[in-house]
């Protein structure tokens, strides 16, 4: 279906070499299950799912192994059948090189599914459908891995003007959306139709860059029967696949700084997400694999359907990495992040494993001072002033950086790409953003502590008053009796209540002492002098602490 559609321009952008040909020569291949799958529980924005399995459990393909933690979270599933061998900390596909909780599965080779039942979303409430998608682990596959069920909500108005489907795929080397649209256009469009129904969207615009003629043809064929759904060919310019940029090109709507597209009746999803929604709803299959481009410094670049948890090393072994390979990048050359090792697993966010070498990605020339030429501002698709952001981030004046809309930066790298002084601008923005987030978290914790502290003061005050009132009542009721009792007691400063408590503490202390004596080591005679000195030092420290604790303890008799 062809129609004349007016296109708009987004500000800035660059035209790097696409490098997309190598990986689109052959159809999608299935990457075999590895010896061990390492499936991280935290794979989407939001809370870390709670593990539902433990070592020794048998799991089926598609069985939930991590349950969404709250609403802003998404479930995680076993990507093939087998035995859980461990739930432990493993290295994450994250620049930090830090580990996180993962479920390790040894596949049994049968690849046996759970019972798959399509979800009848037409007879379910919107909330039920969203919960179903959350439990099916569907997240945005464009790279941001935001839980899709949260976006599939038309909001207060109950409807949406335009549903934008993002098939632009503007970043060099990456072709996973391209091949998906070529080979699975019909299923993808079915997924889009489901989303359109859930969002009650008026029209659907599928944006594809003009360097993907096969994908465009396949998608045009697939949308032919659909009402108000059109494939729009957009000019190839990085980053046309940024959500705000694509919305601008297709609808002319300029979403202002700090606003969201839904405020303007537009919502944007990636084509891969549409396909995942089709699989979850129409086939009853939770998200257990995705298409991953392997490209760069390899002999055989190609797209693979990869089970989540497959180590990247297993994947690139299929593609014959060249001997001078020195790094793996998750994502593309513009926005990707370097992996700490090749043992890290493929996760929902892995759209591409870019294999690098010193020749393919030579070390950047030395950074020079900013000459305020303004090239970066010309290139910035988010209409920011990158040199100002750079200046404030570098000087750690974070408040100012925020005033200049640091958080609207999509980290596309256009500014650093054009900068004549070779300043790694995005590194500065990432640094500033994570510092600001950390500070916000600290501030929140401090605010909570203040409330709790004030409540405690208030509670202590109230308890004191109540006690005084009780005492007064008692005194009034039996003044003589109390006086008599007081006269007969030597230490009238403590109430019977406190006495009882102190006795209890003393008794418990005695018990603890006895327990400790029982557990005291027996063979203390044949120790070296160092060991004995160490013991003596420890005993001295204990004695000191006991001294310190004295004022808080009940008197000995």
């Amino acid at each position, binding site marked *: 279906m062809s129609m004349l559609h007016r296109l708009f321009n987004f500000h800035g952008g660059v035209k790097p070499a696409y490098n997309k040909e190598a990986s689109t020569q052959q159809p999608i291949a299935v990457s075999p299950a590895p010896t061990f799958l390492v499936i991280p529980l*935290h794979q989407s924005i939001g809370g*870390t799912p709670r593990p539902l399995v433990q070592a020794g459990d048998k799991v089926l393909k598609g069985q939930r192994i991590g349950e969404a933690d709250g609403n802003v979270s998404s479930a995680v599933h076993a990507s093939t059948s087998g035995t859980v061998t461990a739930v432990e900390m493993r290295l*994450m596909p*994250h*620049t*930090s090189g*830090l*580990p*996180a909780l993962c479920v390790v599965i040894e596949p049994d080779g049968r690849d046996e599914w759970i019972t798959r039942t399509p979800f009848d979303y037409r007879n379910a409430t919107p909330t039920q459908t969203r919960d179903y998608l959350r439990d099916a682990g569907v997240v945005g596959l464009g790279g941001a891995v935001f839980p899709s069920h949260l976006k599939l909500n038309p909001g207060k108005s109950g409807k949406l003007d335009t549903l934008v489907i993002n098939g632009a795929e503007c970043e060099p080397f990456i072709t996973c959306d391209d091949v998906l649209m070529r080979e699975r256009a019909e299923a993808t469009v079915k997924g889009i139709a489901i989303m359109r129904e859930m969002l009650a969207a008026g029209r659907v615009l599928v944006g594809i860059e003009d360097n993907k003629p096969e994908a465009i043809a396949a998608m045009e064929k697939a949308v032919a029967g659909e009402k108000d759904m059109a494939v729009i060919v957009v000019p190839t310019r990085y980053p046309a696949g940024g959500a705000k940029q694509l919305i601008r090109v297709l609808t002319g709507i300029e979403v202002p700084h700090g606003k969201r597209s839904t405020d303007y009746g537009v919502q944007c999803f990636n084509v891969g997400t549409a396909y995942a929604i089709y699989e979850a709803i129409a086939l009853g299959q939770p998200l257990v694999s995705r298409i991953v481009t392997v490209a760069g410094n390899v002999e055989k670049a190609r797209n693979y359907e990869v089970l989540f948890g497959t180590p990247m090393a297993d994947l690139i072994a299929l593609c014959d990495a060249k001997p001078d390979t020195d790094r793996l990048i998750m994502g593309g050359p513009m926005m990707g992040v370097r992996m700490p090792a090749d043992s890290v697993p493929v996760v929902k966010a892995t759209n591409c494993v870019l294999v690098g070498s010193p020749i393919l990605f030579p070390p950047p020339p*030395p*950074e*020079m001072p900013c000459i305020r030429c303004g090239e970066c501002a010309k290139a910035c698709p988010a209409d920011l002033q990158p040199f100002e952001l750079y200046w404030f981030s570098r000087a750690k004046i974070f408040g100012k950086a925020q005033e200049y809309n640091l958080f609207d930066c999509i980290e596309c790298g256009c500014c650093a790409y054009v900068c004549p002084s070779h*300043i*790694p601008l995005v*590194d*500065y923005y*990432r*640094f500033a*953003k*994570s*510092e600001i987030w*950390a500070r916000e978290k*600290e501030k929140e*914790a*401090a*605010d*909570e*502590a*203040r*409330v*709790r*502290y*004030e*409540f*405690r003061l*208030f509670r202590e005050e109230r308890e004191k008053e109540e006690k005084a009132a009780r005492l007064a009542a008692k005194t009034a009721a039996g003044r003589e009796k109390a006086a008599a009792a007081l006269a007969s007691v030597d230490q009238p400063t403590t109430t019977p209540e406190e006495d009882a*408590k102190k006795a*209890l*503490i003393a008794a*418990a*202390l005695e*018990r*603890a002492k006895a327990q400790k004596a029982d557990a005291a080591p027996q063979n203390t005679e044949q120790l070296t002098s160092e060991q004995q000195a160490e013991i003596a030092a420890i005993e001295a420290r*204990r004695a000191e*602490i*006991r001294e*310190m*604790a004295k004022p*808080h*303890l009940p008197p000995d008799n």
Partner: protein
Amino acid sequence: MISAILVMALGAIVLGAALGYAAVKFRVEGDPLVEKIDAILPQTQCGQCGFPGCKPYAEAIAKGEAEINQCPPGGEEGIRKLADLLGREVKELSAEHGIEKPKAVAFIDEQICIGCTLCIQACPVDAIIGAAKQMHTIVADQCTGCELCLPPCPVNCISMEPLPESVETWKWKYPVFAIKPATKEVA
């Protein structure tokens, strides 16, 4: 088991409601300067500054009775912010009040705990739960790391554990930029 969970849940709800209520009802419309200073202080409530909590210290600063460099948990950055706010000069953290340490949370060795409740009474933010003669636990999310629960413990079973860095708390490092050599290299 279920009833225990229910009781705890009920307790949490009641406490939460009381907290919310108290926050609204007992908000003291205080001196705006004190509030501003208090907003900068880290709310660890540890007393190292020589005052029984952050608010009293904030009041003392506002009255000009205390220096701005007495809060170790706030550290250098806290001092800088206070100096900015009050137009005073930045000073080094006063050593007599302590040193800046990485944030840690208290941890109770539940094997040794005798359930004496002394630590509960010491905790300024009610981050320790437990009843008499039951072992106690610290809610790590709410612990400010003030260390006030350490001295009262008669069996010395509380220790401070530094918070490990995780993928969620990890921060991008400040970019290290290569220094351009002064002499021209022959290309």
